[in-house]
């Protein structure tokens, strides 16, 4: 069942790849096309091809993005006029499929044995049916629209999966142990509150340096979260969930996260390009302290 979901997800990528190939206005159409088709191919055929070959494909994808052969797509959205018109015609019913997506996925995860991921797949299919019903659009538009959004999101879409992969390699190579030993020589292990504070603050600081909480999470959780918090009996669900969002507190305070802090300041023509960060700092610090408190109370 889950494999079927991967095939669908792979088809989304492959569609995107074909649209990218024929996107004549995009100077990077060839690179884009190859990139999305390769990714789709891995999603569909991954378990049936030799893992070393998958690894080699990943390297090829890395070379494509490093050489700037892959970029954002230029697939056009429907005109403003069309959207206004449809918005007036459909009205608030447009939210029904949107809500259905979340509610059905939630319901399947909560009340059946299928699990959250299969639930998401089923919810997506039902929500898609509902959205076509309420909007009276043709099915043939679905691949185009999903490709448009995927290309708008760009190649960074594969980043979570890639970071998960790197995390696995780090675990296997003992990177976590080394960081843990180093931190252990600086801080005493075995105190839950100290461990929680160390983990949350490290997440925020590493995120500030890297500008990306996802990348920090893979490193800091293995190096600090596991030995300093989870090993003492902290509930991994709580620790993981709050660990990542502790990183978001760092995102709020760093110019390295330019997409969230610097570009928006330019969009609103602010005089101080760090003006967004200045407003966010008090809230981010309050939230970071709240993270430490919540994690300590809820996980132990």
């Amino acid at each position, binding site marked *: 069942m889950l494999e079927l979901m991967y095939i669908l997800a792979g088809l989304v990528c492959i569609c995107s790849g074909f649209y990218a190939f024929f996107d004549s206005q995009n100077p990077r159409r060839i690179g884009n096309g190859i990139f999305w088709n390769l990714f789709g191919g891995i999603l569909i055929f991954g378990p049936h091809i030799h893992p070393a070959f998958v690894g080699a494909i990943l390297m090829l994808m890395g070379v494509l993005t490093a050489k700037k052969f892959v970029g954002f797509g230029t697939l056009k959205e429907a005109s403003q006029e069309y*959207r206004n*018109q449809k918005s007036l015609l459909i009205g608030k019913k447009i939210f029904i499929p949107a809500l259905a997506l979340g509610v059905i996925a939630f319901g399947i995860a909560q009340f059946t044995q299928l699990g959250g991921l299969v639930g998401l797949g089923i919810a*997506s299919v039902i929500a898609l049916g509902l959205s076509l019903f309420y*909007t009276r659009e043709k099915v043939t538009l679905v691949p185009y629209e999903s490709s448009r959004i995927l290309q708008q999101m760009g190649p960074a879409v594969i980043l979570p999966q890639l970071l*998960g992969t790197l995390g696995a390699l780090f675990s296997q190579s003992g990177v976590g142990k080394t960081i843990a030993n180093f931190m252990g020589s600086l801080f005493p292990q075995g105190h839950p509150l100290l461990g929680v504070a160390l983990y949350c603050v490290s997440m925020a600081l590493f995120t500030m340096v890297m500008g990306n909480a996802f*990348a920090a999470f893979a490193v800091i959780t293995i*190096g600090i979260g596991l030995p300093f918090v989870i090993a003492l009996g902290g509930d991994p669900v709580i620790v993981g*969930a709050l660990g990542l969002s502790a990183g978001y507190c760092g995102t709020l305070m760093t110019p390295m996260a330019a997409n969230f802090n610097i570009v928006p300041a330019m969009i609103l023509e602010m005089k*101080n390009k760090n003006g967004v960060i200045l407003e*966010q700092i008090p809230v981010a610090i309050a939230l970071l302290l709240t993270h430490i408190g919540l994690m300590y109370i809820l996980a132990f």
Partner: protein
Amino acid sequence: MELIGVVIIVVGFALKFDTIAIVLCAGIATGIATKMDLLGILTFLGEAFVDTRYMSLFLLTLGVIGILERNGLRETSARLIGGIQRATSGKVLSIYVFARMVFSALSLMVQGHIQFVRPLIYPMARGASELKEKEEEKLKGLCNANDNYGNFFGQNLFIASPGVLLIVGTLQEAGIRVDPYSIAMASAPIAFFALCYALLQNYLFDQRVKQ
């Protein structure tokens, strides 16, 4: 020596090199540092990448979002938010941060700053109160800040958000099995606090403007 990968990640991200290439380089360097051969590294990376495919299942939701956007999802939302009468700047922001969080929890919005803040929220908040020049700059900062609060702390409420799946995957690679649903639930308390702090900050802004 095995920390070389961590160093590459930190330096590479900080210098804004291509993210995908950095992660792959860090992987290869770590593998070499721990005396794996090239074929072994590729095999390991390939295997782990196939094992973590579920992190990309959010791809399934893109079709729905695309169709809804095409049919005026943003325009309808804008009319709903714009229909609020007699609001102050802070109240406009507070309503927006709540809406943004809900949208984010339904995985519906990709870029709030461009799609909502600039065309709708800032003009509304700006028009709702008499502001001095210094306060105007502060309001701009707050508009963007509220988008970030709602987006960051709402997104992990969705069971298939990339963040939730990253948590599941990272723990799984460390030998701990957790399911995405419970991660999403565990993200609720902090979302609540984030919302409270945002509302407080917006309220304080209104008080300051009043004086």
